[in-house]
Structures are given as structure tokens and as C-alpha cells.
């Protein structure tokens, strides 16, 4: 007779002010369950600014993915895990008589499908699709959604030709007037995920840092107790998971050490690594853990703010990103833009690899996810809002048949894709979103 009692999905390892959620373990499946417990679908958006050099993004073919264009080369070993979508458009990102300000508009409309009000003070946009999903999917998780980023969380001021910084610096909008600013500092994100839920001030971080130990030290007692009740597979899973949390902690500590010379009172986030790739990895490592432990199922990642003029000295490009994209067909400038685009995709590939390495059920975490990578402009030089570069990584728990390029008809609203994605996330009562004209076909149709 089988009497094993399943471990609740919402089990936490607890310690002083710390609660570490667990990944999905076999022990969480009821022994007599007639069918396997379905893992949830996770959804994330990774947004890069200033458009992408489409000459090196779009393959010359549609259908099964063959040789990938230059910018997508870092994803070569993930060809069977990605889907390229072409010809999606955001009409509401266009000027529509509002004049200059494509960077402000394209970021604001990206997940809302709405035409934002042109103002540096009185902001008005729409609710973003991730937040619509978060209202449903978020009922089951500790955080309805997570918003992360890597640059400039200013919410006030004019960031693009009369458009508020709220438009260029946020992807997620909880209401027409309430953007959800991304968390930039890895320490703040870590503490949000595993600490008391409070983001500490830089001074407090310095103070706490003096006697900070690993959060795992606080929960070791609980962990040891749990380990003794688990089978060998779950023990290995738990061990890998806790090791990855420890690795994140160590990376953050290293970044803080590197930044120790910086005055903690200055506005720059204290634990932000100076190196772009390191910062990206830290943020996405935590995103992986958040998905793995089902802390959230919805995430937005604004890699850098729209219109960003960040220089990429890491790859030998001292010029600002945004000025480079207005290249006026200068081959040298275009080359640098393509290098930045490729560099971004390389970091993204690192995250995809990580998600694919995490086992969940019969597959892996990537199989359970829909990770959209894209931009609100296609050609950053001419500020085009059609054929937006869009890539979906993952299988969405069977909702996506990856490994191919789908070319939609021109001017197909991006909002149509969002409606289909909302269906996959279990939000089925929405008939219209943004400027949608319907839904795109389910992405698992051959």
C-alpha cells in the first residue's frame, strides 16, 4: 500500500527573515495521482533598445531553421528551441501625428499595444499584457510578476522629445498611469526573492554586509531535515538548486567588493557589476531561480532603457549605442551596431542555456517557458515599427513548435501574438488587446 504524502508545492526552507522557495521536486507529485501534475508555463520578455540590424536578423527563408544569420549565431545550438516571428507590427508605436519620440513610444507600446500620451508629466499608456497575465497566473505565486533591468530606472523627466522617462524606462504597466519600474540591482533583486521582501538602502546594505552570511546558512537546518525525506533524484535537484543560489550570492558579493571604492550614498546601485555580461548573467540567474522555484511565472527584462546611449567597451565599442544606430548607412557604424546586437543575443543565449539545463518534469525549464526576445523598433536608423525583431525561446509547455521561422502577413499587429500568448498562459476571456485584429494561429501548428 502506498502511503507517501506529497510535499506541498509551496514548501519553503525558512530561517531568520529568510524564506527560500523550492524547485519542482518529484516528491511534490502525489503518489496516487492519476496523471502527472502539470508544470506551470512561464512567460518572459527580454527587450533590447534602439532596434536591431535586420539585415543580420532575418534569414532569407521561412520554415525550418537552417543557418542562422549573423546576429542570431550565438543561438546556433538552440535552433530546436527557438521560433522566429516576422512581420509583426506595432502601429501604435508610430507617430500618428505626434511627431518625434519613436523611442518613447515604441517602448511604451511594446507590451501595451497602446499609443502613449505625449507628455513628460501627465503619463498615460495602457495595461501591459504581462500584467494582465500576472493578475491570473500571479495568484499562485509569491510574486505576480518580476520586473528587472540593467540601466536607468528614472521615472521622471523628458527622455525623448517630450516623452516621459516613464515611457522609455519601463516595460510593465499595472494601469494606464502606473508603470512598474525594473529592479536593477542584483542585491535588491536577491533580497526581494529570498530576503524579507524589503529592498535595503545602500547604507543598510553596507551595514548588513559586515555581518552578512549566506542566506543558506539560515535555512540549513530546514534543508537537512528535508533532504533526509527525499529520494536520490530530488536530493540531487535540491543540492543543485541551493548551489546555484549560493553561486549567485557569491557573484553579488564579488560585485559589491569590486564596487567597494564607490561611495554607497551615490545613486548608482551598490551591487551592480561594472561588466555588462556579468550583470546580465546575475539577473538572469536569479530569473532562472525565480522560475525554477515558481516564485513567479511572469517576468519582463528591459536590458537597457529604450534610446540607451550605453557604450560597449567590453567589446571594444566606445561609442554610444543610440548614436550608432543613426548610422546614415555608414558601414563602420553599421558594423558596430551589428556587433552590439550580437553581443546582446550572446548574453541571451547564456540564459537560454541555463533554463535548458534545469530539469523539470520530463523535460526542462525552457520547455515550460515562452521567452520573447525582441525590440520595439526594427530599423533603428529610420525608426521603423514594422517587422519588429521577435524571437520566442521555449516550447510553452507544448504551445509552441519551435525550430522554425514563421512569416506573418505584413502589418500583423504584435497585439495578435499577445492574445495567443495570453491563451497559453490561461487568460482566455480577452477578446481584444491593444490594436489587435484577432489572434495569430497557435504557435504549435505545423
Amino acid at each position, binding site marked *: 500500500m502506498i502511503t507517501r504524502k506529497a510535499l506541498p508545492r509551496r514548501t519553503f526552507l525558512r530561517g531568520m527573515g529568510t524564506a527560500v522557495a523550492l524547485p519542482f521536486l518529484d516528491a511534490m507529485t502525489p503518489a496516487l495521482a492519476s496523471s502527472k501534475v502539470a508544470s506551470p508555463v512561464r512567460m518572459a520578455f527580454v527587450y533590447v533598445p534602439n532596434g536591431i540590424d535586420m539585415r543580420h536578423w532575418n534569414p532569407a527563408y521561412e520554415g525550418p531553421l537552417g543557418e542562422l544569420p549573423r546576429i542570431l549565431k550565438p543561438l546556433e545550438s538552440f535552433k530546436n528551441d527557438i521560433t522566429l516571428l516576422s*512581420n509583426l507590427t506595432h502601429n501604435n508605436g*508610430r507617430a500618428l501625428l505626434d511627431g518625434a519620440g519613436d523611442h518613447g513610444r515604441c517602448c511604451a507600446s511594446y507590451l501595451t499595444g497602446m499609443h502613449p500620451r505625449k507628455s513628460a508629466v501627465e503619463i498615460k499608456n495602457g495595461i501591459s499584457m504581462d500584467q494582465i497575465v500576472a493578475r491570473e497566473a500571479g495568484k499562485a505565486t509569491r510574486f505576480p510578476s518580476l520586473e528587472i533591468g540593467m540601466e536607468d530606472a528614472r521615472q521622471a523627466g523628458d527622455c525623448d522629445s517630450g516623452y516621459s522617462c516613464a515611457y522609455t524606462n519601463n516595460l510593465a504597466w499595472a494601469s494606464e498611469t502606473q508603470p512598474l519600474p525594473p529592479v536593477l540591482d542584483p542585491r535588491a533583486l536577491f533580497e526581494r526573492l529570498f530576503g524579507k521582501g524589503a529592498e535595503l538602502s545602500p547604507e543598510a546594505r553596507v551595514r548588513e554586509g559586515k555581518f552578512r552570511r549566506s542566506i543558506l546558512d539560515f535555512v540549513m537546518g530546514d534543508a537537512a531535515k528535508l533532504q533526509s525525506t527525499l529520494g536520490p533524484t530530488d536530493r540531487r535537484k535540491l543540492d543543485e538548486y541551493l548551489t546555484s543560489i549560493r553561486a549567485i550570492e557569491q557573484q553579488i558579493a564579488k560585485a559589491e567588493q569590486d564596487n567597494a571604492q564607490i561611495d554607497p550614498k551615490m545613486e548608482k546601485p551598490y551591487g551592480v557589476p561594472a561588466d555588462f555580461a556579468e550583470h546580465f548573467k546575475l539577473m538572469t540567474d536569479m530569473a532562472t531561480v525565480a522560475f525554477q522555484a515558481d516564485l513567479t511565472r511572469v517576468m519582463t527584462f528591459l536590458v537597457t532603457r529604450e534610446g540607451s546611449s550605453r557604450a560597449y567597451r567590453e567589446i571594444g565599442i566606445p561609442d554610444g549605442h543610440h548614436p550608432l544606430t543613426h548610422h546614415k548607412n555608414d558601414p563602420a557604424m553599421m558594423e558596430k551596431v551589428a556587433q552590439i546586437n550580437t553581443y546582446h543575443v550572446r548574453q541571451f543565449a547564456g540564459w537560454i542555456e541555463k533554463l535548458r539545463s534545469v530539469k523539470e518534469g520530463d523535460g526542462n525549464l525552457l520547455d515550460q517557458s515562452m521567452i520573447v526576445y525582441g525590440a520595439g523598433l526594427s530599423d533603428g536608423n529610420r525608426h521603423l515599427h*514594422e517587422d519588429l525583431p521577435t524571437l520566442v525561446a521555449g516550447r510553452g509547455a507544448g504551445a509552441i513548435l519551435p525550430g522554425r521561422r514563421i512569416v506573418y*502577413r*505584413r502589418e500583423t499587429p504584435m497585439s495578435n501574438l499577445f492574445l495567443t500568448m495570453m491563451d497559453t498562459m490561461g487568460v482566455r476571456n480577452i477578446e481584444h488587446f491593444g490594436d489587435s485584429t484577432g489572434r495569430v494561429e497557435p504557435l504549435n501548428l505545423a
Partner: protein
Amino acid sequence: MQLTGRPPSGVALDCDLGARPGTPLAVEILFALDQKSECRVISMATTRSHLHSAAYLDAVYRFYSGTGPFVRPLPVGMALKGPADPLPHLEKALQRHNHEIQRLADTADPYAVLRNAFTTQFDGNGLAILCGPATNFAKVLDLPGSRELIALKCKLMVAAIDDTRRAADPAAAERLMAEWPSPLVICEWEGRLPAAAVAADHPSGLAEPADAELPGRDAAAILAAVRPNEPYFRYSGEGRRRTVTIDPAQQDRAIMAMVELANAKPQPRTAPPKRPV
């Protein structure tokens, strides 16, 4: 026109190009008016579900606009359901004139392009022209917010819709008459245009039957939309639903205007002049 401070009216054209003679020529007249800055074609769509129909619209656009960095993108909407029989007369024109529509993905969702066209216009600056069944425009009314948008942006629809086109989609025709939010004028002129209206080196030179008079209803509808106050137009009815025809006594004048427009040579746009330093 530039001195008035108001941009030319933006035209959203929906047609059944390829279904009958006269429409290819009418589309050229529309682009000739665009070239004279009397209007600006902001979207085109076809109710025929045939790539040749969409490709021909693209070919005419490129014939008048040329190529280069100053040519604005103008996606062509094409219905997925609708008559799809071969159009050999259009094929001949397409073999000779450039276009960029080779496959379905090169066409656009007709409802999106027709709706989006109005979003680009100042209030009351949009024009809708229908030279085909009412299917596409009626469907646009189903998109949330589109009625309010059209009421705000579209000053007039002129429809060259006759019994044949009504019969092609009677429900849509009825709905358009009842629900289209802007004033609507039905063009009833049944006159014909001389063979001389067709210029041999234009796309219509191959798309229209040779040396034959052509039905002029579509061309008249386009002219009535863009030049509604020409003295040769006779309106009847009152309110938001009226009809228009051409005064028989002034018919020659109207035909001459259409022939001149149809024969206008394309003048590709050039770069805007540099500002003096």
C-alpha cells in the same frame, strides 16, 4: 495646397482589382492625383483573394513613386476569402512592371491597413474610396474603437458600388450603408471612358483591354472623392447618404479631366531641398 497649411487628404482605397475593366485605370487616376498632391494614398486593399490583384496595386504605386529611400512603405491588404480566379490580363502587366508582392506574407491584413490608415490622419482629413464589394470596409467596423476612429478621422466615403458588387456580399453592403460612421456618397455614373484614356506604357496599358471603351464608374468615384466640388458632379439626396453622378451636359469636361489624369507621367519624388545655411 501646401499654402493652406493642411496636408492633402489621406485616401484609404479598397477595390476588387481584376474583377472588371476600368478599375486598373481608376487606380492610376488616384495615383496621378496623389502625385499632384491633391490627396495622399495612405492604404490600399483588395477584396480579391489573388496575389495578382494585390501585386498590381503595388506595381501602380511603384510606377508612380519610383524606388529609393524617399519612397514610403505602403503595404497592400488582401482578403484571404474571396474570388480567387486567375487574372491573366493583370499577369501581363505584372511581367513588365516592378512590384514586391510574390507570396502571401508580402500582403497585409486588409482590416489592419484600412483601420491603421485612419490613425495617421488629422481629424476629418481621411477619405475612404470603395471600388468593389463592401466586405473589407464592413469588417473594419468590427474592430474595437474603429467606429469612433472613422467618425473622427474620415470626412467622406465614396463608393462605386453597383448591383453586381452588392450581390457579391449583400450583408456587408447593407451594413456599410447603415453603419458607416462618415457621410457616404454612392457613385452612380454609368458613362464610359475612351480607349485613349489608357497610356500604353502605364501598367493599365497591359491590364485593360486594348482599344476599347472602359467603364468609368470607379474613375468617377475617385475623382468625386478627391475633387468633390467640380461643377460637373451632380449630387442628390440629403444628409449622410447621398448619390453622385456626372452632369450629362458637362460629361465631356469630366471625361477629359479623367483622361488627362490617367495619362499623367510619373514623377518620382526626390530628396527634399536642403535648407539654406
